[in-house]
């Protein structure tokens, strides 16, 4: 049901952007397809985990036949392995989603880059102003010091 709703919403979105450029519609379709595939994988893995766990719990009844107990033990091991495998598959899916977030989050990346650019520009302006102020202060200090020095009675002969 969730997938259907999403498909409907995506379809509505596609129809809305159908008048846009071709690549945009194709990208949207590809994204929708990928979303479906990911959801399918999640559903499969979760179902596998739940089913296997249910079977393990169901096998908890003690059987009279020792042969059946051995069979059940082997089945339990098999289902436990399948559960772990499904969990690992989910983790890989999460990794893929993280990678997708890293490489597809253009909006946030661009915003951050622009923010950093603005910060660095401000920093550069601030540094330039600081340098200019330092230059002005140095110039004023030099002028003052020269006036004091050359007004004094004693002047040192520079080493030539």
């Amino acid at each position, binding site marked *: 049901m969730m997938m259907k709703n999403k498909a409907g919403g995506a379809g509505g979105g596609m129809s809305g952007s159908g008048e846009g450029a071709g690549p945009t519609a194709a990208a949207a379709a590809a994204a929708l397809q990928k979303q479906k595939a990911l959801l399918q994988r999640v559903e499969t893995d979760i179902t596998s985990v739940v089913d296997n766990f249910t079977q393990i719990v169901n096998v908890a009844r003690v059987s009279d036949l020792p042969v059946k107990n051995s069979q059940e033990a082997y089945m339990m091991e098999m289902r436990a392995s399948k559960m772990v495998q499904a969990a*690992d598959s989910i983790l890989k899916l999460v990794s893929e989603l993280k990678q997708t977030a890293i*490489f597809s989050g253009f909006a946030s990346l661009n915003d951050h880059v622009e923010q950093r650019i603005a910060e660095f520009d401000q920093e550069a302006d601030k540094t*330039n102003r600081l340098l200019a102020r330092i230059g002005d202060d140095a110039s004023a200090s030099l002028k003052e010091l020269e*006036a004091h020095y050359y007004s004094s009675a004693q002047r040192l002969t520079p080493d030539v």
Partner: protein
Amino acid sequence: MDSDMEISLDRLPIKRLESIEENGAERFPSDVNYDDKRVSLIRRIDFAWALEEEDDLNSKKKKKKTSKEISEQWQWKGMVENLQLAHQELSVIIDLINTVEANDAVTVAGMTRPKPMPNEILSDLAVSTATKLQSYRHLGKYFKQSAKALEQKVNREARFYGALIRLQRNWKVKRQRVLASNASNEGFTFDLSDGSVYDPASGFRPSTLSTIRVEHDSAGMLAINLPQDSWYSLRFGFVGLNSIDNPNESNAHINSTTGEDLISEKESLSDDESVRETHSLLREVHKSIFAEQLFDMLNREAFSEGVGFSISGIRENFMEMNIGQGASLFVSLYPSGKNASIKKSESANMLIETEPAEGDYRVNKLGFPSRASYEIYLQQIFHEHAFGKTKDQPKSKSNRSSNQTAKDNNSGLLDHFCLSLAHRIFSARVLVQLESVVCKVPYLHLISHPTWNSRTSSWTVLMTVPPSIIPQGSSESQSPDGKRKLKTQFRTKVVVKDDCISIEAECTPNVVGLLKSTSCNLFSMNKYECDLADLPVIILQQVASQIVCWLLEEARTVGTKASRDFLSLSLEIVEGERVSLVGQVNPEDAKGCISWWLVMENGCTEERKGVSESRKSLGHLSLDVLYSVLMDLINLCGSGRNALD
């Protein structure tokens, strides 16, 4: 055999019908052979009496034991008896089975499992339950191990991707689709190249360090492994003053190599510190790429014509050039990895400058500017050249120093840089000359004018004269509003552009000024050039000329006939007799550089031939004393005229 004898009668040896089945079939017993008959006869004998006697014997033996043993044996006696009975029955069954196998008198018609006892059922159930419980415990252990492993994997990934996301905010991360799964390489790379710089027209080529692979360390954290000495730093210095090879660890050696001594350190670092270290390492590599680009550009410009430099030596990652003014500089790329200091120990016998006072003293003494400041300047102008095209830098007062780029001067960056450096050295020498003159003449002041131009320097030699004591009167220098113009300061401006000295001042001691010795032209500004060797003399002559002009103006103010001839001021006492105040300049004079002479001249008439002249040295006079001397001379002129009248 106390019991009664029993007699049993056998049946007649005739075949008797044993059974009739439903379908009417008759069953007769099978024929018994002699052995079977004998066995059956033996079995018909009752041996119970023998067993009873045996039991009595056993009971008698047991009565001889102590009371405790009897009580203890009594506790297990039942089980023992049961076991014995079971053993006997098993023996009978085994005999029966053996007999059946031997195909003797008994045949097995069918076997049925005996109905299990409740305790047997419970024991079987207990065994099954225990087995199943063991299986579940084993399963539980397996799940715990798997959960632990998955949790570790989650934590590792969280650390890795968290660090990657944080670094992605400052660096460009690319992903490569790798076919083979590699635990140490997820296929991520850091791209440190700048597309705006790599323009085929500009000639820049991407550095080998532009792409850096992202790997995992032993703790699962993001790591960057770079070979030692793989990145460089730019080194600039003066030949003979700065070491060519820099064994200093001035650059931070922050790297995440996989050396064993670093692994334990990295494990103890927190994620933040690890990310910070990686960021610093990437920054070092970024700076290295910048240094390589800069050196590459310098190399290319070195082979183009330039007026400011000439290449005197070149090899891999090293370039040496002469820039004039007796200076040679070098630009090199040196590895700045951790082992750089170890590798460069071979050249440790070279002069090492680690910002010592002695090195700075030598640099300052020779007039060479600070190595570090010009290293920064070189990087700055390259940065503006390479990256300034793509960015619109706001024009501000603070950018005045950066506005002097090579493009403004129609020269290459290297040329501009070398000319700037040469100018700095030359201007330092000019300053030394000016200071040597100004410090010896008390009434001169030197004022520096920062131009914020890397190839232009400017100073002013200021002389303040004493105020005039002559009251306001009719004078050519009167202003329209009636107030007398007082000239109290004389300025001599010295401007150095590259290695060209130009002087701009009033009252220049030139021939043109002599011919037109009016007040307005007397103080006209003139501009001329000179070289460094003549600068002290020129300045002193200019100052002396300004003093003479000032005295001349003062003398004319009171109506005295006065004239000026280069550095002499002549006053006419009476006709034919003149008194002159002559200035003499000597830059080597430690007492004052400008000394004055009083020269008396008797006029040359047609009757008298020859000019008699007497001179008297007045020494180094201050301006107040000079003014007083002038007033005295003016009074002398006035009294002499009156006497004639």
